[in-house]
């Protein structure tokens, strides 16, 4: 089974994150950039399937030059190779335009299965698997906490508000995973060394047959008008319990009319 894992470089969610004042895109210069945490679970799931079923695992990303760091990070875990869609005209692309590019790249790779993290920690939009599936006319099974493959049939257990549901589809398909699905491996020293030599193919928009005006700011379907920093929350009253902490808490709740 040939698998493509979608990965994304994001600003570290544990650090201060900002939008650039000039074009309202993510400021990648001020942030510590990391591989999106959820993507590690997608890579792990791909590697587990490869161990069981054979085939090839390819990492795919779209992003600026420095997104290559996230590719290397993912390759250290064990995938065979990577594809990096890199083109200056992509800067400022919205989700709709991004899905067009990723779908085109996936067409060239023609995998049996596409794996993705359920969300990125920067945008947290969660729509990419369905957007891609819509374009490719393949099944999207999102938010998996368990994935089983039986020949060409995929079965996914996904969390819902009220419990869970079991959904099934035939390959080719795209599956997004939550962090409940597995425990990602740490790259071994051997893996880290090997990753340096793994092939990373770069694809431009021209390679994908997409015109620059279909992506980036020019081709985007939504625009950020402005962004402002929200004033940080102010700490309120802090009391140390000296035997009546619970009562004081309820008194506060009463003044706020919660009890």
């Amino acid at each position, binding site marked *: 089974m040939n698998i493509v894992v979608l990965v994304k470089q994001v600003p570290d969610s544990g650090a201060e994150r900002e*939008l650039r004042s000039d074009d309202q895109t993510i400021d990648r210069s001020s942030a510590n950039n990391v591989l999106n945490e959820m993507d590690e679970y997608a890579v792990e799931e791909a590697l587990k399937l490869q161990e069981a079923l054979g085939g090839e695992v390819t990492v795919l990303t779209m992003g600026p030059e420095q997104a290559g760091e996230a590719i290397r990070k993912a390759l250290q875990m064990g995938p065979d190779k990577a594809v990096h869609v890199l083109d200056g005209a992509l800067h400022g692309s919205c989700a709709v335009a991004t899905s067009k590019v990723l779908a085109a790249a996936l067409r060239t790779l023609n995998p049996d299965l596409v794996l993705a993290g359920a969300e990125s920690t920067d945008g947290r939009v969660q729509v990419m698997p369905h957007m891609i599936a819509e374009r490719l006319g393949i099944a999207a099974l999102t938010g998996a906490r368990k994935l089983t493959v039986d020949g060409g049939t995929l079965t996914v257990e996904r969390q819902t508000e*009220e*419990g869970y549901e079991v959904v099934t589809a035939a390959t080719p398909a795209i599956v997004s995973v939550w962090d409940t699905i597995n425990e990602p491996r740490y790259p071994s020293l051997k893996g880290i060394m090997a990753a340096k030599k793994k092939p990373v193919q770069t694809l431009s928009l021209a390679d994908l047959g997409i015109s620059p005006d279909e992506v980036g700011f020019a081709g985007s379907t939504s625009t*950020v008008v402005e962004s402002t920093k929200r004033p940080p929350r102010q700490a309120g009253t802090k009391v140390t319990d000296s035997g009546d902490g619970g009562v004081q808490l309820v008194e506060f709740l009463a003044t706020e009319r*919660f009890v």
Partner: protein
Amino acid sequence: MAEVLVVVEHSGGAVKKLTLELLTLARTLGEPAAVVFGAPGSAAALTGRLGEYGAAKIYAVQSDELTGYLVAPKATVLASLIGDVAPAAVLLGSTQEGKEIAGRLAVKLDNGLLTDVSDLAADGTATQVVFAGSTIVRSKVSRGLPLATLRPNSVAPVPAPVTPAVSPVEVPLSDADKLVKVVDRVVEQKGSRPELTEASVVVSGGRGLGSAENFKLVEELADLLGGAVGASRAATDSGFYPHQFQVGQTGKTVSPQLYVALGISGAIQHRAGMQTSKTIVAVNKDAEAPIFELADFGVVGDLFKVVPQAAEEIRKRA
């Protein structure tokens, strides 16, 4: 006045609160028209409630095919409906399903999509709070009609009763809509508590609870306050509470009127999911815990003493 399509979320014959928020918001943009997806006969039970909140029209899309497959058929039906009625805007809930339908719709129509909005102005400008509550973004759809998903607890639902006109909608589905089949739906933990993302009060427990057994303290306080129960990632990873109740960066984002954090240190991963709560109350034994930086009221102390005492005090006042 142009129609504003609102995709209804319902469960067990009841309209979800988020849909009432959507209808309230829709009234500021045009004439609300509710789109109900469900099994045959499911729309009738919802008509009264939808009318109470201003749905002048109800498009009833009822078929067993809709419930047997994941979201793709709903997006197909909506795309067709949008073509027919040319609405002023399309609003969905920022739930997993709402966002997925909207994502597909955006591709089908080559239309912009604004997710997790907390407001949508009449001129189409949306407000979004991003990066763990640190940044406010105003954005617009630049191609197509305003298509947005609303974050729960963003708008106070206000009734505006009308008698809805119900129109059945039938749209033939293609094979591409039926690629993902639902084979089983399992309801877990469906108690009397409100849903986590919709609740106006959320009481969450963290590592400080120490065990799954001790989470009954959190549940007790939640029940006394009429709230939902949440948990930090440390608590769900330790198996103290099921994962679907996790609040934070990799779990649910909540924005209730009152958030009570018990034994939660307040790591950024957790804050990302609760920072926009109106009022925050915390109990933690560590006076330096970062949760106190955002708490409107904090008690430094042993939660196993403070929480039972608070529960007792609430009972006394009831």
